């Protein structure tokens, strides 16, 4: 099949075939990352801008490297140092970048729906690198790539997402993508951090960690933001850790070969015990490598590349 969409805004909007196409395209991309000379001329003459309205190290570097490994030209626009600080609207900033001849705009923004809003107005491809508490589709895809690579298939797996589901765009993208590919997705966290009616997205809701972890193939641990405590959403990190922190003993509840994922950056000792984070089940560092591969695949597909051209 061919990629048809102009943008990647969320996994909610993708078909199973589209998700598989991205994941399949990421396999040869990962092979490139493993080479000594990590450079192919595939996207020479193409350009990508990262337009980030929120701080980010890993996602931004990951996109930047993905583009560079494919020989695309890249620039980074940080909201604080641009005309955004002068009060320019997102639409106008987008139109300006588009008028400069950019092929792909990678946007991170604190407002849910910002990527969709931008995509409506500019002909350039838009990749959502995280919009508010809506979606973070490239994180969802790299998690799925990691799981598929380790487990062979996603269909029939049980995946447990632990933590602040309410504010997590990672959780939402994972729920959409994993359920489309036939996994059972469980979410668990404090009642104050669980969004209403999330069952309607296809997830099973738990408020206790023990039953949520029983028999799962994958545990995806979310970062807990310290500021949620000040907002009165949970009483203390101590109690959070006691109820929802993933440690070695709790990991025993999962299947013996269960994987541990974390989107980073980690609060070691709070949501995840260092022993687990660095243990044999952890695939946290591979997630990072896979993130570059998945983003290379997306840049390639969104600029008109065909899967057959790289795989043969």
């Amino acid at each position, binding site marked *: 099949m061919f990629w048809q969409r102009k943008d990647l805004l969320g996994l909610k909007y993708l078909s199973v075939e589209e998700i598989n196409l991205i994941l399949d395209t990421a396999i040869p991309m990962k092979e490139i990352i493993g080479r000594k000379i990590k450079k192919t001329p595939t996207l020479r003459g193409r350009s990508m801008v990262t337009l980030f309205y929120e701080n980010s190290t890993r996602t931004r570097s990951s996109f930047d490297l993905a583009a560079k490994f494919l020989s695309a030209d890249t620039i980074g626009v940080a909201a604080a140092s641009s005309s955004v600080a002068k009060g320019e609207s997102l*639409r106008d900033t987008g139109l300006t970048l588009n008028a400069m001849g950019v092929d792909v705009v990678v946007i991170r923004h604190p407002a*849910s729906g910002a990527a969709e809003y931008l995509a409506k107005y500019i002909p350039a491809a838009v990749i959502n690198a995280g919009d508010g508490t809506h979606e973070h589709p490239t994180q969802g895809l790299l998690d799925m790539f990691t799981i598929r690579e380790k487990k062979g298939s996603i269909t029939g797996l049980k995946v447990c997402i632990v933590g602040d589901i309410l504010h997590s765009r990672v959780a*939402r993208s994972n729920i959409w993508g994993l359920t489309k590919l036939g996994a059972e997705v469980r979410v668990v966290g404090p009642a104050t951090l669980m969004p209403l*009616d999330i069952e309607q997205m296809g997830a099973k809701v738990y408020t206790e960690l023990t039953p949520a972890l029983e028999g799962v193939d994958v545990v995806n641990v979310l970062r807990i933001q310290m500021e949620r405590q000040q907002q009165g959403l949970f009483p203390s990190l101590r109690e959070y850790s006691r109820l929802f922190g993933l440690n070695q003993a709790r990991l025993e509840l999962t299947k013996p070969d269960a994987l541990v994922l974390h989107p980073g950056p980690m609060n070691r000792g709070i949501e995840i015990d260092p022993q687990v984070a660095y243990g044999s089940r952890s695939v946290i560092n591979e997630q990072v490598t896979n993130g570059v591969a998945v983003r290379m695949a997306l840049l390639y597909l969104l600029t008109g590349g065909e899967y057959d051209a790289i795989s043969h």
Partner: protein
Amino acid sequence: MPYLIKNGIVVDPIDETLTELDVLVDNGSIVEMAKDLTAPEAEIIDAKGCYVCPGLLDMHVHLREPGYEYKEDIESGTRAAAMGGFTAVACMPNTNPVADNAAVINHILERAARVGVTRVHPIGALTKGSQGKELTEMADLQAAGAVALSDDGQPVMDAGMMQRVMQYAGMLGLTVVSHSEDLSLTAGGLMNEGAVSTMLGLKGIPNAAEEVMVARDILLAENTGCPLHLAHISTAGSVRLIRQAKSRGVKVTAEATPHHFTLTEEAVQGYNTNAKVNPPLRRQEDVEAVKEGLKDGTIDVIATDHAPHAYHEKDVEFQYAANGLIGLETAVGLVFSQLVQPGILSVPQAIAKLASNPRQILHLSGGKLAKGGVADITIIDPNLSEVVDPAKLQSKSKNTPFIRWKLTGLPVLTMVAGKPVMQKRRLLR
């Protein structure tokens, strides 16, 4: 100039009757109402197949003047009202400056007299600057022409303050219009809390944010005896609370907007900022409850909460967009399409909620066509259809989720003090 309205069906919302009568108007008054009237000197207005109603009054409108004329002003807002079949509007005090003193009320009335197409009845603020801290000079506001009091958009969070507001307003017989919202429960919410807000990643506003305040204000009305009007009711729980309060005799009335009886939270899908409104669009079961409340009389009034916002205030990321939508020009069409045609309200019941009930709450005369009465008249053609076209809207702002909706049942004449200001879907001034 005398006008003879021929062959129409006169709607009496108080006696709940429909009667084929001709209506002769002269010198600003209704001179005669009878069958087969003739008046050779009068201009004939043919109303065959149409409802001849007492002039409609929208008791919840934001005209934005003074202060926000780039969104709307008294002229454009009353043009929109006339186009929508309203002979009068009551305008909310959240202008800049806030209508919290007689000078602002006087200014609004003077501007309305000069440029207004319909009647304008200002609503004064409950507290100075609508800050919820000090009482306004309510007697002064009343003497200047304020028809009710409200801190619309800025709920009085302090219950003790609200109690004093209601004691003092009650002393003057002024109705307090409550924008019922507990800000600690809204807490930055952007739309109804539920599956849609969860999927879109938008912070949700629970039904309780409204219901907690509806319950509080009902109790305070009960304690103080002050007439309370609850604005823009959106949830099933609120309807239930109001129904219970009325059954034990509390002096409480309530209104619903066309968007709350027509749309659900689904309208927000795709981050549609024209569907961003406070209180938010709720679930289907809330819409059904609001309709049930309209049907059984729990909800007395249909008002639009006409809230114009400029293009650039809506063409932004959803969370930065202003709350509110315009409603004056689509209200009658929505009432007929959503309530009258499906049989939820009879025509007299619908007109009661658009004409006579709001006047009773605001202590204004009219609301019934009668010989010798003021000739504020709205004629509605129940079979006329139109597609909502932003280019044709009279309001300065075009922020409505009903663009491209086909509405059936539209006003074809708006007459203020015996003079047509809108006829056959065209403004006459």
